[in-house]
């Protein structure tokens, strides 16, 4: 019986001793899975907005953490809107609730000024415009920047709006 108790004690010690690191690993996996799950919806939203972007030579401003352009997205607004993409590094403020301690990609439009979170993860992010008029969101992986979202902006001409009252948008 003493041997049995000793085995039980050993197994309990082994299980309880590793519980912390296991739970930490599980939480990290969960957080990373949430990040990768949000990549596809973010790609769809970004592609819809950049597909409607116009005058991308004159009305496009871009830094590594901020992009602003004008787009016509009839699903959001009948008139052209301003689109703001902003990367916020919240890794320093770990105690800011659910999104604290992460890097977030925020989207705000003139139709919906309250920013929505498109991506929320632990990797550093940056914005880039590729030579072929595409907006690229890159993530840092092992010290190198790799594309995460690529959204082409096909229209570069100014918008000439003939308002269509039936479709309730520009023609």
């Amino acid at each position, binding site marked *: *019986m003493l041997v*049995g108790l000793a085995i039980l004690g050993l197994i309990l010690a082994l*299980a309880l001793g590793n519980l912390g690191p296991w739970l930490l*690993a599980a939480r990290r*996996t969960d957080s990373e899975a949430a990040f990768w799950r949000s*990549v596809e919806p973010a790609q769809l939203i970004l592609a819809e907005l950049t597909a409607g972007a116009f005058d991308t030579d004159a009305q496009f401003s871009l830094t590594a953490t901020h992009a602003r352009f004008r787009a016509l997205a009839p699903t959001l607004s009948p008139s052209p809107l301003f689109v703001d993409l902003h990367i916020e590094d919240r890794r320093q403020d770990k105690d800011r609730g659910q999104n604290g301690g992460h890097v977030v990609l925020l989207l705000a439009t003139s139709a919906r000024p309250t920013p929505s979170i498109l991506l929320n993860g632990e990797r550093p992010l940056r914005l880039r415009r590729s030579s*072929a008029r595409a907006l*690229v969101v890159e993530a840092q992986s092992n010290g190198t920047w*790799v594309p995460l979202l690529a959204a082409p902006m096909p229209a570069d001409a100014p918008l000439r709006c003939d308002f269509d009252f039936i479709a309730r948008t520009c023609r």
Partner: protein
Amino acid sequence: MRALLSSIRSPAVSRPPAAQAMVLVEILVAALIIAASAALFLTVLSEARFGLAQSRGRLQALAIAADLLDRAQTRRPPFQLHGVQARHAWTLTCTDLGLRSPRLVLMRCEARVSWRGPLGLARDLALSRGFARQLSPQP
């Protein structure tokens, strides 16, 4: 002295051998349950990480291929490029489809990305797109 020892001896010691064996079995079953729970938790964790690594590799490959296809429009076909990005090896092949106007040339590009998934399994993905490339800037 013997009488004193027998008076302070725990009742379990004085149990019959069958009862002692039952207690031993109970302890062993408890140990097995704890060990099985830990093993199950670790299995779920490793499966989640396996699935995550798979989808991460695929999404990363998709993004690299889409970016390559976007960048392909700036070069004149035909051409073939190779490279490695974030442990993903890629090949971009663009061909001239032979249809052209004074201003545009029709081309088709294929971006093929290959990488090692979890357990070292080789994976690959190909995206292709046809588009008209401008031959010279518009006046």
